[in-house]
């Protein structure tokens, strides 16, 4: 769906005709996308629809086969270091150094982003307390649960105060309290002009948090807009995002599938 792009003067992220293939698999299929400053942008789609690849393209972790990418007004390929300095990234199931303690890892990341000692100390302590990791920060990460590792990855994305957050399934494995903290934090950061692009499978979260939502399917941008715009497009007024998502991705044959499984 190449025609789905907005014209705006304040885009934090701008993709133009971006395409990426892996051998015979089309990961991203000529996508145009604009994300505004201070926006929380939800990226939805079934497994393998190209969400994670799109996030990696924005950060420069994956080079597109064609098209252009502009991040925070910078062409990512021209000055990748400047882009990376201003972006916080959490990959899907992040692998972090398990031989370090949580504290050592955050200290390491703080140094990577050039935080000064006092600032680093203050932020690490605040986040550890907020995420209820106090008391375990001196343990090796290898002994952490998946949720604790996710918390560490999230803290490391937030602690250098980035202008753009690229979060791939950010709430995966988090306990309800920490998930709520992250959600509130993202909303607060949005009011301060921080842009968030978040890929998720949890449609309730996307619906509750996102200013706008894009639905990807087989590498294409199937639909983009606010909840209201999406429900109009799907011709499902008053429906929730789940129904809209299933209809737009033509995967609403749930009942038949369940019945077949029960045979």
């Amino acid at each position, binding site marked *: 769906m190449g025609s789905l792009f907005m014209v705006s003067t304040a885009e934090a992220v701008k993709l133009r005709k971006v395409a990426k293939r892996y*051998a015979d698999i089309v990961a991203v299929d000529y996508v145009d996308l604009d994300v505004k400053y201070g926006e929380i942008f939800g990226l939805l789609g079934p497994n393998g629809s190209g969400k994670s690849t799109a996030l*990696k393209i924005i*950060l*420069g*972790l*994956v*080079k597109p086969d064609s098209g252009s990418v502009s991040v925070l007004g910078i062409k990512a390929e021209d000055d*990748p*270091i*400047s882009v*990376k*300095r201003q*972006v916080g*990234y959490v*990959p899907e199931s*992040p*692998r*972090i*150094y398990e*031989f*370090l*303690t949580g*504290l*050592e890892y955050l*200290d*390491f*990341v*703080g*140094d*990577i*982003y*050039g935080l000064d*000692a*006092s600032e*680093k*100390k203050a932020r*690490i*302590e605040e986040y550890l307390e907020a995420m209820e990791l106090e008391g375990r*920060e*001196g*343990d*090796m990460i*290898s*002994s952490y649960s998946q949720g604790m590792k996710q918390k560490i990855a999230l803290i*490391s994305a937030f602690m250098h105060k980035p202008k753009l957050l690229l979060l791939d399934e950010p709430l995966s494995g988090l306990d309800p309290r920490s998930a709520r903290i992250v959600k509130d934090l993202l909303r607060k950061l949005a009011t301060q002009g921080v842009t968030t692009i978040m890929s998720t499978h949890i449609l309730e979260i996307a619906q509750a948090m996102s200013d706008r939502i894009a639905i990807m399917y087989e590498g294409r941008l199937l639909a983009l807009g606010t909840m209201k715009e999406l429900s109009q497009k799907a011709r499902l007024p008053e429906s929730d995002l789940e129904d809209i998502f299933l209809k737009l991705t033509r995967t609403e044959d749930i009942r038949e599938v369940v019945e077949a499984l029960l045979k």
Partner: protein
Amino acid sequence: MNWRNVFRLISVEIKAGRLVRGQRLRRYRERKIFQYLLYGGACLLGLAIGIGAGSFYTGVSDPDLKVLFDEGALSLFLSIPTLVLIFSLVFTMMRQIQRMGVRASLQPPYWLPITWEEHTLASTLANLIGTPLAFLILLISAITTVSIYLEQIPLATITILALLASAFLASTTTEIFRILQVRLTGAVYKSTGKAAVWVRFLGSMLFLIVFYVVWFAFTSGTGSIALIEAVAGAQNAVWFLPYVWLGMSVAAFMSGLLAQTVVFSLASLLFVLVLFYVAVKLNARFGLYEPPAITISRGVYAPKVGFLGKLGFSSLEAAVIKKDFKAFTRRRELMYIFITPLVFILMPLMQYLGASGGYFSSGGSRFLFAWILLVPGSIMVFMLGLMIIGEEGESVWLFFSSPITARSLVKCKYAFVTIFSFVVMLFCGVVGILLARPSLDIVIALLIESILLIFALGAVSLGAGIKGADFTEVPRPRMVRPLTVLVYGLLCFVLALAIFSPLLLHAVTMRYIPISIYLPKIDLYVAVSISAVVALVVTFVFHKIALRNAEEFLTKAEI
């Protein structure tokens, strides 16, 4: 026991071991022909050895020589079960050492309907797949063929059965050792608390050192024929040890003692079953054991203003160096690298001690010192350079997503690689001085030479390590592609030779190396100066290549 389950589990383990080849594997394709090539080759080699030995035997007309050959063959048959036991024990233990860094368990998921007996049997048999199995096939093929010429087919049959049982016995012992080791180390970490990292580090080092000392003691000096004779003689003396009963049953059969053959065979079978039962019970008891969390620090967090900053490293570079240091002292699969210098000290030393009875000639002492000072540091810098990027594993996304430049990456990684190797080189130098007591001139010249080698080989291997990095972590961190190791191993060897050649020429002209070529004498320090020029050129060129590779690595990051 469901044998289908056992075979499926073995096949999973075999595939898991092979799966890690190839960088971006999307599908697992297996070529059966390559899978069995090793075993087919071993079988053919065994056949060739058997035919060769058999033809020699039939061609011998001297009756004394024929008797000698008969005795030798029988001595080999007699000792083979125990030799196979030792070999299999060492090899399966080595495999366990290599698996120290395995991230994903190769063991089947515990929630599947698989019994502990099936699981333990599959694990025990899978331990023997690969080199041990190829070795067994080679022996079986050779023994069978030679026995036809010697007309000893019944003896060969019983030897082969004993040989197979020995391999299984060894593998079961290793399985027991593995389970106990996991349980024991977990208990030790729990009780040592904060010091657990160092306990783990020193414990692993100690284990590796003891293992290698035993290995070198076995393999150096005596020679294989002496070893066979020693084993054949020794197993009679220690007949009460169940591990030699298989060898004893072969010995009894050879002497025509049928009752003893039956007793030792049955006793061996019983021992194998008991050992397997113990392994199953231990697996059921401790197989799911999770080692406790290791706590490194407690108390108030105070960021340190680093010493590295004073040396001119940025906070980013210093952070990477510190992180790498922690990686090499805490990650089990990387701790292995610390053993390298010790192996390269132990190896020549034990050879020398074996050959010379502890006496060093002046030439020998010079050679020993040169070896100990130059080789461990050079090997260390080569290995570190190759693996320093790949050791990031799947956590490399952090490098790709963070504001690290190619220059910074090369600077901090090169610094780590060289500093680490300098420390090793100095340690080895001190050991070398104490052992070989070389002259001051030799010490200075070789010290400069080893510094030059570390700088040059560090630049070469780092460039290669960036280019050939392999971030695969499952089932074991691979770190660098095997082809890169091979190609750059050869290149480093050639470059090291080029750097060292002026000093070699000096040694030849000074008659330290007894070669009858007349050349004008080259002064030691002139030779060192020429070496320095060669090394600096190599360092400069390959540092540039490393930088270019790092730029490409960061810009073409695809994760």
